[in-house]
């Protein structure tokens, strides 16, 4: 019974593909997967926009949108109609071809990222041998799309926002990839399916997720921080900060192209959360072995929603980082911590026998450098309580 529900979509796909002549079957099978990804994640985007607005509202002691539909949950439809019917303004001096292509490239790259994420047992669109590498390769195309957007608008502020965004994304890619490399090292494979299968065991009822190890926890924290920066989300949203530079690299976009940018950004966020879930949180595995009867794709989406909720929580809590603070944080703190995390993961594998010793050693290897490094970096900042000359 549990297995039937778990493999429901796989069997549905097989049944549908069986109706097609044999020569076309691979294409139709992939197409079905693509259609499913497009509908599910675009629907998730719509739900996330309203969840984010309501969540942020509650955090800020106000209601979110609550006029359209029950408790405001049909708000995305209203937003969709608005963005489709707005006039598409292209600046006179803008580079029309590049201006048109930039949101398309962004959305294209963002959708391609889902090809290597295992949504459930046997439910991955493309079981590439180098899945994680594919993910990072395609996410670097998104940076190019951002540059295209900023440059084609022929607007100094757009260009500035685009260059800042690219600098930020490139800087935070390094700790992101290093954190993932630790996982790849321990699982011995770049394939996302293999990584999830490595985390599929249970000791007692507790799972073998990588996040429950010292290096995995540190790696997960690094991954989440770098993922927030990669998606240009608060507190790393200076390039698109609404109060700083209007909208940064997509100032000159209106109507549907703006909606496409929005879509691309959120899709990138979901994809990177999906990768984090795959690498650290056990993919589609259940958190307790007694709960394995729940279908695997439900666990994936539950974890994805939890991560989205966390991102919304982070957005509502932390103030925006300035550009130089952001870059310092990436290069002076995140990069050394990611490298040390790599060493810790190696030490963990070295102590291949289970035991308290390896927990102790790896725990010390993670916590002590964190404390020392953070203390030494904060000393240089001279943070004292502010004294105002006239405002007392």
């Amino acid at each position: 019974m549990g297995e039937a529900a778990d493999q429901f979509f796989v069997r549905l796909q097989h049944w549908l593909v069986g109706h097609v002549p044999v020569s076309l079957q691979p294409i139709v099978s992939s197409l079905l997967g693509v259609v499913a990804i497009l509908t599910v994640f675009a629907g998730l985007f719509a739900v996330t926009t309203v969840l984010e607005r309501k969540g942020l509202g509650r955090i800020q002691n106000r209601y979110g949108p609550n006029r359209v539909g029950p408790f405001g949950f049909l708000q995305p439809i209203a937003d969709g109609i608005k963005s489709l019917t707005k006039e598409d303004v292209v600046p006179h001096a803008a580079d029309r071809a590049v201006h048109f292509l930039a949101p398309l490239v962004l959305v294209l790259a963002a959708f391609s990222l889902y090809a290597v994420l295992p949504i459930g047992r046997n439910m991955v669109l493309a079981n590439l041998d180098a899945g994680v590498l594919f993910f990072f390769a395609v996410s670097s195309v998104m940076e190019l799309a951002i540059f295209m957007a900023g440059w084609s608008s022929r607007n100094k502020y757009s260009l500035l926002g685009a260059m800042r965004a690219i600098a930020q994304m490139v800087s935070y890619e390094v700790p992101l990839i290093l954190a993932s490399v630790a996982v790849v090292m321990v699982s011995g494979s770049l394939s996302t399916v293999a990584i999830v299968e490595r985390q599929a065991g249970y000791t007692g009822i507790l799972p073998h997720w990588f996040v429950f190890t010292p290096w995995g926890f540190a790696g997960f924290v690094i991954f989440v921080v770098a993922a927030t920066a990669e998606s240009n989300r608060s507190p790393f949203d200076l390039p698109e900060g609404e109060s700083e530079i209007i909208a940064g690299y997509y100032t000159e976009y209106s109507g549907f192209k703006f909606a496409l940018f929005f879509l691309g950004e959120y899709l990138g966020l979901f994809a990177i959360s999906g990768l984090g879930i795959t690498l650290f949180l056990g993919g589609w595995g259940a958190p307790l072995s007694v709960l394995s009867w729940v279908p695997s794709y439900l666990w994936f989406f539950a974890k994805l929603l939890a991560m989205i909720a966390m991102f919304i929580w982070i957005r509502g809590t932390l103030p925006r980082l300035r550009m130089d603070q952001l870059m310092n944080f990436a290069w002076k703190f995140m990069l050394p911590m990611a490298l040390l995390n790599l060493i810790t993961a190696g030490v963990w594998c070295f102590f291949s026998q289970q035991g308290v010793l390896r927990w102790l050693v790896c725990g010390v290897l993670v916590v002590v450098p964190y404390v020392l490094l953070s203390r030494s970096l904060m000393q240089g900042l001279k943070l004292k309580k502010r004294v105002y000359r006239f405002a007392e």
Partner: protein
Amino acid sequence: MLGEGIAKGFVETARNFFGSYFYKDRLTTVQYPEERLPQAEAARNFPFLVYDGEDSQAGMRCVACQICEKECPPKCIFIEKSKDKKPDAVGKPQFYPAVFNIDISVCMSCQICVEVCPFEAIKMDTDFELSTDDRFCGLLWDKTRLSKPNDYYRRIHPTDAAVSDGILAEEKAKAEARAKPAVTAPPAVATAVAATKANSASSNGTHAVAATPDLKAEQTNG
């Protein structure tokens, strides 16, 4: 320790989030238009003409003196005097406005018309839900649109209405006091008293005498 402040911040926002579901007084949002905040007593938006009694045209206090038209800074009031006269709030036959238009797209709510009116005839309304899609005619209000009863005035500005009623009652008492001795006093006193009145010509004094019993009955009914 790095992260301590961030953790405290997270606890604070989580408390806000969950608290907003359980403690309703955290959310100070007023769900307009289902709920409305009461306006302050001295709130003002656009003027309206006060009338006493049931009939908005017969009970209108305005006597078309045109002082407000002259004092209005953006000149949004447009008055045309009538040819005949009708009794005013105190009982004296006065002209009345045949046409009284205010263009509320021009009116800047400065209240000068209220301050200069000697007859307590024009007061400031508090109604702000006046949206219309007719940009020109919809915002040019005529006499009937502008007239609102005195009970309405008492409801929206109780203190000011009490003061206004007091002034009118005083004036009416003075007018009646003058009317009574005018019946028995010598004509010289009557003319002297009539000359001190700031309003219409002395010949109206005798007319007021004849009209007073009818008007008194009308006032008590109002």
